[in-house]
């Protein structure tokens, strides 16, 4: 069974942790995000500290510093994804181009539409009330 260690940090520790991990030669596995049961944004930075994953969580923040300068595209792609799907703002991140969502979703900034809008509402909006 693979080990998963959750470590809660503040937003001011995001960059120092990333810098330390980069110095130690750790891979950034992924930056994930979800809205927890309290309705708060939970962003986790998962680093491979083999054989475990060290997962650094920032809870309740919707504006975070970008670690793109430290981990290049390994960080900027998931940051752009979180920006599109959850409206998380990353300071210094170029969000002028879409990553996954259709161009027309950028008109409304596409922000959070996929993950926040209930599926039934998306079906109704896109396919009509009967889902066909």
């Amino acid at each position: 069974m693979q080990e998963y260690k959750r470590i809660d940090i503040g937003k001011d520790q995001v960059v120092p942790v990333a810098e330390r991990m980069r110095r130690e030669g750790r891979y950034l596995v992924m930056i994930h995000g979800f809205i927890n049961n309290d309705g708060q944004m939970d962003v986790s930075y998962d680093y491979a500290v083999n054989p475990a994953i060290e997962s650094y969580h920032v809870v309740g923040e919707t504006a975070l510093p970008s670690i793109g300068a430290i981990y290049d595209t390994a960080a900027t792609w998931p940051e752009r994804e979180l920006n599109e799907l959850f409206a998380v703002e990353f300071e210094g991140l170029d969000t002028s181009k879409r990553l996954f969502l259709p161009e027309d979703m950028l008109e409304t900034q596409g922000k959070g539409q996929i993950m926040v809008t209930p599926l039934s509402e998306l079906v109704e909006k896109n396919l009509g009330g009967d889902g066909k």
Partner: protein
Amino acid sequence: MSYIVPIGPYHPALEEPIHAKLYTEGEVIKDAEVFVGYNHRGIEKLATERNAIQTLVLVERVCGICSHSHAFTYAMCVENINGVEVPKRGQYIRVITAELERLHSHFLWLGIACHIIGHDSMFMHIWDERELVMDLLEKMTGNRVNYAMVTIGGARRDIDDELRRELLSACQKLKGLLDRIAEIALTDKTIAMRTKGVGVLTKEDAIRMGAVGPHARASGVDIDVRRDAPYSSYDDFDFKVHTVDSGDVFARVLVRVLECYESIKIIRQALEMLPEGPINLGNKLPKIKEGQTVCRHEAPRGQLSHMVVGDGGLNNHRVSIHVPSYKNTPTIPHMLRGNTVADAGLIIASIDPCFSCLDR
């Protein structure tokens, strides 16, 4: 003269849709951009309205090549959250399926690479040999693509003694076929001239951009989840992680060929040491306990990670899927720079991209 050359989203050299813009001076690519999202199906969103068994079916459809990898990784997440230990025989069967999947994926890629460089006889030869792997997968699982071999708590189908002997004998045959493919792939002048020194990604860039899998190993980065964070009994098996330093397309061919040998080695060991006992814990519909985890699996294209969040109910609170192509695709513009337009299709294909996986 400066030109902007668009490739895709639909293009004969691409197996799946992606859009690349090449900024060229004559024939030479000076810069490039890639755009993804043409296969975005909202699978993560759908997963929040599915229970664990339904999600296995759903995540298998993220990808048509590495379908087992997705079900395998998702199941590991739910088992980790619930504190469930998969019976050893079930673990071995998962590994055998995963390595057969790697073989068919690498054969598929080698064939496509040969097709792109115009070596169509080799392409047809490799795909013909790949059929043996596909037949084995079909015999073992009942399916050629979405195998449905994984359930929460183990494997869904057993390998009886007759099938075990047949698979062992097929391993011997596969090694012979692979020897022939390796001899041609690694010594043929056409392949060497089209791939050596083309689309180079240095070790430093591969690490910085987070490249994974055979793509990273072909740039000299020594990573492999099966060895670095063992799971599902991978630490029971003797296998080598191959790396090559040159970082060009030829290195990617070489690494994948060598990895096929290792997969055959792992399958043979797993079959020879196949433990007695149950293959799963019973096909019950599990609740996903409150908790969160990330699991990693070395899919054919590299590290695949799933994050699952449970809230104590039957459905997932959140499933987040990140595939090897997510890490490898951003390296494409880097590899294209300084190469010619004629090599662009090959360089893009050399990461063995899966845009269906990437977009989810």
